[in-house]
């Protein structure tokens, strides 16, 4: 295995990033003022704290994404092995997708796919 190449690549990455930061830090002109340190929100000062509680909708979408992410993880080996097995593999994956489709139907019916 070309683990030497990986180590060289890793070291090159570290040297390039730190080198670029170090050089730009060395060369760039420095100025400091209060306005530079102010937090901004599209050019305006923020109203209230910047840490806000997110909506539940994000969480729901993340979990739906995760479920279908796992599904894809199982579909990839199926797709690779499909040619060697043939029609039975197709039926097997149809059952798999049908059961997951029920879940999608449930999410649809419950309005989980709507952004409120």
């Amino acid at each position, binding site marked *: 295995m070309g683990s030497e190449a990986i180590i060289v690549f890793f070291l090159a990455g570290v040297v390039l990033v730190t080198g670029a930061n170090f050089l730009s830090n060395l060369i760039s002109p420095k100025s400091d003022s209060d306005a530079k340190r102010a937090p901004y929100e599209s050019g305006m000062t923020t109203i209230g704290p910047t840490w806000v509680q997110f909506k539940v909708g994000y969480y729901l979408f993340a*979990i739906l994404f995760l479920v279908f992410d796992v599904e894809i993880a199982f579909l*990839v080996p199926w797709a690779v*092995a499909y040619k060697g097995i043939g029609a039975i593999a197709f039926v097997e994956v149809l059952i798999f997708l049908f059961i997951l489709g029920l879940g999608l139907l449930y999410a649809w019916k419950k309005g989980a796919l709507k952004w409120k």
Partner: protein
Amino acid sequence: MERILFYILALIMIGFALASVMSRRMLRSVIYLLFVLCAVAGVYFMMDYNFLAAIQLTIYAGGIIVLIIFSVLLVHHIEMRMEIARPTRQLLTALACSLGLAAFLSVIYTYDFQVSGPGPGTEVSVIGAKLLDYGEGGFILPFEVISVLLLAAMVGAIVIAKGTKLSENKNEVK
């Protein structure tokens, strides 16, 4: 060379795992955990488990971390830092952890591991063929049961997320 690579990965894993546990800000802990999961994927690549490494990167480093970030952002007072535990509690925790580590290591070191012969291979095509095999030693039943598990996870998540919304609305009405 392989050994150096392994130690680099182990160092990244241990360092960021410690940082994740010891950080007092929740969001930073999650990001440290992301680095740990990426390093685990690196170890999988070293062992030639390419498919498992890809899954580790897409599902753990991609999906799970996004999920944890969203659930952290759902917390009310996210800007708060974790409080430092009392010294007695710290001592007790350290004692319990070292006891657990001692038990773990003693089991690992006393067990007589046997070197097994080469397995059926870790290529994606081999995994897929095994997964769809309905004969002896095939994994078609787990493959179909996984879809039921995913369905249950999806329904459960929707019920929980929608349920909290409903109760919040009720509280507002009162």
